[in-house]
């Protein structure tokens, strides 16, 4: 439906920068999830 003038191709630098950002965000969120997992187990150990 859209014509080619409606799209702007990304440069290789933009693409690699976006990949790096995506990787960094994914690792950070994974660490947050692991942190919640560990924190609640540690909290229960401390309480019991």
């Amino acid at each position, binding site marked *: *439906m*859209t014509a080619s003038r*409606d*799209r*702007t*191709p*990304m*440069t*290789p630098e933009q*693409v690699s920068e*976006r*990949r790096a*950002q*995506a990787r960094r*965000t*994914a690792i950070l*969120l*994974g660490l*947050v*999830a*692991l*942190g*919640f*997992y*560990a924190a*609640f*187990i540690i909290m*229960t*150990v401390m*309480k*019991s």
Partner: protein
Amino acid sequence: MAYEHTADDAHHHDDHGPAHGWRRWVFATNHKDIGTMYLIFACVMFFVGGLMAMVIRAELFQPGLQLVEPQFFNSMTTMHALVMIFGAVMPAWTGLANWMIPMQVGAPDMALPRLNNFSFWILPFAFTMLLSTLLVPGGGPAGGWTLYPPLSLQMADGFPMGIFAIHLMGASSILGSINVVVTIMNMRAPGVGLLNMPLFCWSWLITAYLLIATMPVLAGAVTMLLTDHFFGTTFFSASGGGDPVMYQHIFWFFGHPEVYILILPAFGIVSSVIPTFSRKPLFGYDAMVYATAAIAFLSFIVWAHHMFTVGMPLAGQLFFTLSTMMISIPTGVKVFNWTATMWKGSLTFETPMLFAVAFLFLFTIGGFSGLMLAVVPADFYYHDTYFVVAHFHYVLVPGAVFGIMAGVYYWLPKWTGRMYDEKLGKIHFWLSAIFVNVLFFPQHFLGLAGMQRRVPDYGTQFTDWNMVSSIGAFAFGLSQLLFPYIIWKCVKGGVKATDRVWDGAKGLEWELTSPPPYHSWDPPPNRELVARGAEH
């Protein structure tokens, strides 16, 4: 990954299509293929969970024990909940997210396509394992979906299988959520700002953060159940210095946000459907975003309203009552804004709009009964009765499930390039809307009269409304068979759909062809196209 391609070879990239045969699905990295697999999986699980509900309602048709043993009945209630929550509703939302988020933010695909494949393929293994527990000695989980110890620790051979399956479901949800957040935060096309992307993306972004924060908490809780069962720890056993109530706190710290995980994406869909069929912009977009965020925040500080009868200090009771009631403020903002969007609109009632309007009415009934449950003295009476069952089913069936139906009917012509049979869609809606009320409304009366939940037998004074409820359940279940038939008929021979499909539709997804190209936005749309998509 699709977006690794450079500008120079972008035109080659558009040329290649999907792999053929089973490889297309097993090794799928395309967001649409994975979205389709999630949706098919969710549909299958919806019918598996529905079949369990039929067993429950058949047993409860009359007082006395008719069809199944009490232990198996308890397994059915537990498995019905686990299958519907983790197997049907959550994968359906992830499927819709996979299909729509890249198309709505102007991305070629999800940010992490291989992770996307992995998070889907975990699910069939998890549910095969969970359902297999019904075949092992001792049967499946039967202590309720909350898996409270010490009852859950009395499970036999199925225990480790059930716990492992829950870990796998959690891992799948977390990985899927990471993908959603990374896609929205990093893959938006130029001009797609956070405060002008569709509300479905917003509601999913907030849902994904909720999932990342709470699923590990459930995983932690069931890991500790596992070590209590097999490794001699006593996290939740008073005999060794532990505390079973601690499990309840941890579980509900996950469990209450989970309710919003199930419903927030429906808010996003309704926020797209109502403006489209009202032919008006959404009333109060910014307020809707902030209301969704406020609901998500409040969901973390209300968990103990599930535990009033366990006992807690008066200050705790007051805090959890008031914080729970506060959720009605942002929710009220949403209901007001949807209503205001329809006000003086040029309304038409195609199937997605019918489901969205029914959502608005019936979800609000579930919200009101939730307010009643937030009041401590009243909750002491309602707790563990069918009133609670009626409340959360009003939130989850005409809430979450009707939201999914609205979304599927809304975007199906875009996905397939063909229109579904509108007449059959409307029949599906009316049967669903009528019988969901026949099924669940009498359960309010049963609960108020004192009928306990999770029991296979009951006093004869509850017979009449149980019969009505069961008839509603059978009719509702049967009418859902129309849904896969309508989709199959649409895919096989529906009338060709236009690219915009609905004349009031706005957003980038409607700027693509119907069906969209294999790589949706590669290269990404420019600012002019994004602005045009928002205007239409």
